[in-house]
Structure formats: structure tokens, C-alpha cells
């Protein structure tokens, strides 16, 4: 649930210095989860560091990030993700909800899932803290229905190739070395990073999604999910 105290919904915050990237994929229903996970994990691989350990004199050391290969079952594709079960669970939960919402929306199956990286800016009481996004990834999904196994086999390969292209696109964006939040002091670290996981430390992020109905307009309820809420009350 969205806790209104913690941040202003980013739709209302002017997206200054927030770069936005949009990726589009057409997949079969059973490929949605794996395709989304592949993209989200690839982005988060680049946007996670090891855990910070602050020492005296303002120095800190950084833990180690492990990685692992993931094979897709319904797509001829493999990707690398950060070795963190907590992070994987969080992403699977979000993607699972997205997939269910897509399925329940009807046969057209169009929607998008967004991964937003933000910084928190503390405000004095009674104003709530601001969430300022600095990078937004949107994946537009179009679910196709296939008639027979032969088409499905071709789809496995085609979607695999498409995902390879998406990974290359993501890496291109990452390589631009554009704005990244400044490395925070110990008191500020929770405004920049999600420190709730025990093995890795991604930048603060939230995942939301929208389902488009067949007319191309947003469904009345724009469902917003806050997966990680670091300002636990």
C-alpha cells in the first residue's frame, strides 16, 4: 500500500534530471514473467552495489556483489542477475502481480511495468519527504496469442533475440555515465540506497505498472505498488 507520508507520488513531482528509457516487447502470455525479470534484473544488476559499511572518519567500505546465470524456460534466453534472494523475491512478486493483472484485463493484454530509481529529500514537518526520480525504465508489453506449437517455437527464439537487443540497449544507457546520486554519508544513505536487504544494496527503487485496455486508454485504477518502502513507519 502506498503510504502517503513517505513520499509524494512521482507523477506529481516534476521529473527534473530524470532520464526515461522505454523498452517494448511482444511476448506470449507464459513468457511475460521471464521477459520482465530479465530486463528488471539486468537494470538492477547495474544499479546495485555491495553493502556499505561506514567506519570512522567518514570512510566506508563496500561489500561484494555476486552474480548468477538464469536460464529462461519459455524463452531461448539467459541473463545474469545479482545473487540476492531477497531482491529476486521482490521482483518476482511485482512481476507476478503485473502478469496477473494483464491476464485479468482481457484478451488484448497490453500494459507496461515501470522501474523507477529515486532519491528521498527530507522535508521538515509537517511536509512529507519528497521522492525525486532520477531514472525511469518503462517496459511496454504486448501479449500475443499463438495458435500452434510451431508458432510458439518460433516465438521462443524471436523473443530470445529481442531480449538480447534489449540487454544491449540497457547496457548502452548504463554506459553513458550520466547522473548518479552522489555517494551519501552515513546519515544520508537511506535517502539514496535501499539498505533493507542483507546482501546487496540497490539504489532506492519502486515498481509500478499499468494495464491498458483495448481502447488504449489507462484503466481507471492506475495501480501503483510500492514494493520497497524504506521509510518504514
Amino acid at each position: 500500500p502506498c503510504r502517503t507520508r513517505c513520499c509524494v507520488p512521482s507523477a506529481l513531482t516534476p521529473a527534473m534530471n530524470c532520464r526515461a528509457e522505454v523498452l517494448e516487447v511482444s511476448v506470449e502470455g507464459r513468457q511475460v514473467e521471464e521477459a520482465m525479470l530479465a530486463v528488471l534484473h539486468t537494470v538492477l544488476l547495474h544499479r546495485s552495489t555491495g553493502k556499505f559499511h561506514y567506519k570512522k572518519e567518514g570512510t566506508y567500505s563496500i561489500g561484494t556483489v555476486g552474480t548468477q546465470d538464469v536460464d529462461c524456460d519459455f524463452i531461448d534466453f539467459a541473463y545474469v542477475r545479482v545473487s540476492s534472494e531477497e531482491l529476486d523475491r521482490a521482483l518476482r512478486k511485482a512481476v507476478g502481480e503485473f502478469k496477473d493483472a494483464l491476464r485479468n484485463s482481457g484478451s488484448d493484454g497490453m500494459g507496461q511495468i515501470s522501474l523507477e530509481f529515486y532519491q528521498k529529500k527530507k522535508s521538515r514537518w509537517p511536509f512529507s519527504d519528497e521522492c525525486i526520480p532520477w531514472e525511469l525504465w518503462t517496459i511496454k508489453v504486448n501479449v500475443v496469442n499463438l495458435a500452434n506449437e510451431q508458432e510458439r517455437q518460433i516465438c521462443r527464439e524471436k523473443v530470445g533475440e529481442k531480449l538480447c537487443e534489449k540487454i544491449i540497449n540497457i547496457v548502452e544507457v548504463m554506459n553513458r555515465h550520466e547522473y548518479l546520486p552522489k555517494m551519501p554519508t552515513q546519515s544520508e544513505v537511506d535517502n539514496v540506497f535501499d539498505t533493507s536487504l542483507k546482501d546487496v544494496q540497490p539504489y532506492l527503487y519502486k515498481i509500478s505498472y499499468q494495464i491498458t485496455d483495448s481502447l488504449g486508454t489507462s484503466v481507471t485504477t492506475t495501480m501503483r505498488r510500492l514494493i520497497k518502502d524504506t521509510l518504514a513507519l
Partner: protein
Amino acid sequence: AMDTDLSSQDRKDLDKFIKFFALKTVQVIVQARLGEKICTRSSSSPTGSDWFNLAIKDIPEVTHEAKKALAGQLPAVGRSMCVEISLKTSEGDSMELEIWCLEMNEKCDKEIKVSYTVYNRLSLLLKSLLAITRVTPAYRLSRKQGHEYVILYRIYFGEVQLSGLGEGFQTVRVGTVGTPVGTITLSCAYRINLAFMSTRQFERTPPIMGIIIDHFVDRPYPSSSPMHPCNYRAGEDNGAVYPSVEDSQEVCTTSFSTSPPSQCVFTVTKAHFQAPPPVVTDTLKVPVMGLAFSHQLSSSRLSYQPAALGVGSADMGYPVLFAGGLNAAHPHQLIGPGKEGGVPPIPSQPAHGTQADQERMCTPLDGVHYSAATPSSSEDTETVSNSSEGKCGSPHDLLETIFIRKVGAFVNKPINQVTMANLDIPFAMFAPKNVELEDNDPMVNPPDSPETESPLQGSLHSEGSSGSSTGNTHDDFVMIDFKPAFSKDDILPMDLGTFYREFQNPPQLSSLSIDIGAQSMAEDLDSLPEKLAVHEKNVKEFDAFVETLQ
């Protein structure tokens, strides 16, 4: 002039970063072509030797080869570090698949902070490399290696040579990092013309021994190509092992500072290891076959001196053996096991282009036990559990690599020729012919083309696709989504109720549907004498028939 802007400490740090970045780059690339899934643990406590804050294991032989190729130099303008990935079939044909290039250009970024920004960006670049190594066509090929072909690597330093990639090769850029002494770029050029393999249009090079990159595979490796375990070696009695990165005195613990944000505190510690530093000299001793060995190799020098290391075998050739008549147009530097501390004895007979010969060369001689070299490979039955704080125990635990075997998209499964009748699904006979069948595990990829085809055709078909053949092989086996019997949209498009009704009330057998009213008993009796007469006439035939049944 550019050096005056950089403090000497910064310069030292930068050189060290670039050196270890190059070594880690090679590790990532080679490990991505081993054919196995890679898995390393995250560790919240810094362990002190994970360069760039990433858990990338160091395969000692690979580090050794990379250091040999670099020979103490760093990538600079005109001097690039290249990792060439090639494929070699069991018949000895080989083909270059990819060249990964780590280059340096002249564009300097004087303002950038070495110990902080450059370091972090190099870390990001390694992550990008991890991602990109899985999306080029060679990745899928390498996951299927072992039966008909293997994947080899070669490291060289100097000018990039892309001519072996065939026409129309593509390039992908992994990324760049600006530094005060130049901009580091990492890219990959890869072949897209894999169709050549099936028509054997490439030159036939003599078989080449090289490291077969399936270093961490479970032992014994069941049915793999016999070309391999040249690089398996035990914890040997002479105690010589490859120097791992930790062995060298270049472990770096980095601390970062936020106040002021640009400062970085560096502490360099020596790792505590018992293994003696390797003795490597620059002399190349190759008592092999009088081949003009050195000029066949590419520009890097090989360092090997078995005698000095107390290895007894007198006829120990350089473990990398060239077949006669090495094609000069393809200077294949062999990444031999080239171990500094001792060489698995290999007979120095030349190999002549047959697989049998290669098998012979790979047979271990007297008493050398082959097993995976690295300490943590015994953990390959381990799966990744919740990646909690990594073990900060023995140094060998620092970088654990756990390989998980999972039946997934890239498994090279034995070919199952499945026909409709063999499949254990209910009422398979009634399923329409064009439906496809799959293993009961829906997560298993459909099998590849049958083994009876040309070994190259099935695996290496068009555009590096997953290798599942199209077209004609659909006639050999069929695949089906496994769904519960009688469910909707199943083989038979009917629901449970309809199914039950139809199959509980089968039509009468035609043989039983006698129209009784048409015949009377009298007619039967009347026709009997006629019938008997016919039977008596043919009695001999009947007798003969009965005899055949005895």
C-alpha cells in the same frame, strides 16, 4: 605532460586498476564460455580481495594466460588486449566466433577521480560485460559444447585481428571508462556467418590442442569430447599450483570516503598464502618436433621453463603441442596448460589431425591425477542458498563459485526420438498428428535434432539460434505441451463430460452386428454340406497350415 596532472599515487592506483580490470575481463569472458551456469555469492562484509566489489572467481590458468599475454604491459593506444573465442569440432575444424577487445584510446578525462569514479565505473563495466557475454551467439553455442565441438579461447596483446570472423561480422560495445591517461573501451566483434560450418568452407586447420574450457564440470565428465582434460590437475604432490590472484601481492582493500567525497583511502594488504610464488622465466623451451614454434605464435611471449621447476620428465614438451604443418595464416597461440609449477606430462608425439590422436595426447601419464584445480569446485553440488554474509573464513572461500545444473533452455539433452505411439499419454492414438509432444517436465526444451545428422548441422544452424532444428525434424518427433489429460484445449478439443460420454458408449463392433432376422437356422444347415465339400477339397492346404503352427 599528462602525467604531471596525475599524482604518482593516483597513477599507481590507476595502473593497478587497469591491470586487474584486464584480468577480470578475461575471467568473465572465459567463464561465460565454459558451457556452465556461473553462480557466485554476494557478501555483505568486504572480503578484501574482490576487485571492483564483484564476486568474480579467478581461474588460475586463465589468469596465468592473461598475464603471459600482457607480459607486464597494460592496454595502451595500439596495444589492445584481445580474447579470441573459437569453436573446434571433433573433426578438427575450427572457426573464430568472437574477439573481445579491451582497448585504450587517447581521449583523456583529466578531471575524473581515479580512486573513486574510475574504480566504480570499471565495476559497472564489468557488470555490463557479465550481461553482454550472455547475449552474443557464442553463448548459446558454448552452453551446448562437449559433444560435437568445444569452445576455445586465446589471449593476445597487440593489434586487433578481426579477419577470422568472416564477412559481415557485427560488433557490440560493452562500454567505456574515461581516465586521466586515456579512455578504456571494451567491445566485442562476433561472427554471424555460422552457416559456413555445415559446408566446411573454412580452412581445415590441423587439430590444435588447447585448453578446453569446461574447467568446473563435474567429474567424471560423462560423454564429452575426449579432447579435454589437459587442464585438469590435482592438488599436486609437488605442491605447485597456479598463482591465483590472491597469491600475488596485489590484493587491494579499498575504502571509500564520503568526507570530503572525493577522497579515497587505500590500503593494500598482502594476502596470506602458503603457495610459493611461481618461478617463471622468459625463456621458451620447446623441445618439440623442430617446428619453428615461436613465430607461429602471436606476439606475446610464452614463459615456461619446466626444468627449473623440478619437473622430472625428460621429454616433457611444452604442454601445448602443435600438429605438423600448422597453418601459418592462423597463428593460433595455444593456451596450453602452461602451468608454471609443473606440467601434466603429455607425450610429445605430434598429433596428426585425428581425434584418436588427440585422445592419446590427453591421456594422463603415470600418476597425474586430474581433477579440478580450484579448491571450491568441490562445492559444485551446492546450490545458492540465501546469500547471507559470505564466509569470511579461509581465503579460498572468498570467491566461491557454485555451478548449478538445471535443465533449462540451453541443455544439451540426449536426443529423444519420440513418436506418437511411444508417448505415455492417454489415448495417444487419437491425438491429431500435427500436435507436438514434450517431455513430461514442461520446463524442458524440446530436444535438438537427432544425432544421426551431421554433427555440425544441428547445433550450429542459422544465426546462432538455440540449435533446435526447424523443418524436417518435426517429422521425427513431435512435441506437445504437457497438460492434464482430458483438460480443455488439450490434444482432443473436448471437455471432460463429452469425453466420458463418447468413450463410455462406443459404437458396436461391426462383426457383432449380425442381422439375425435375415438368416434362419434352416438356411445355415442347408449351406453346411456345401461348405464341408469345399473344406475337404482343400484339406491338404489346411494340414500344411496346421503343421506350420506346430
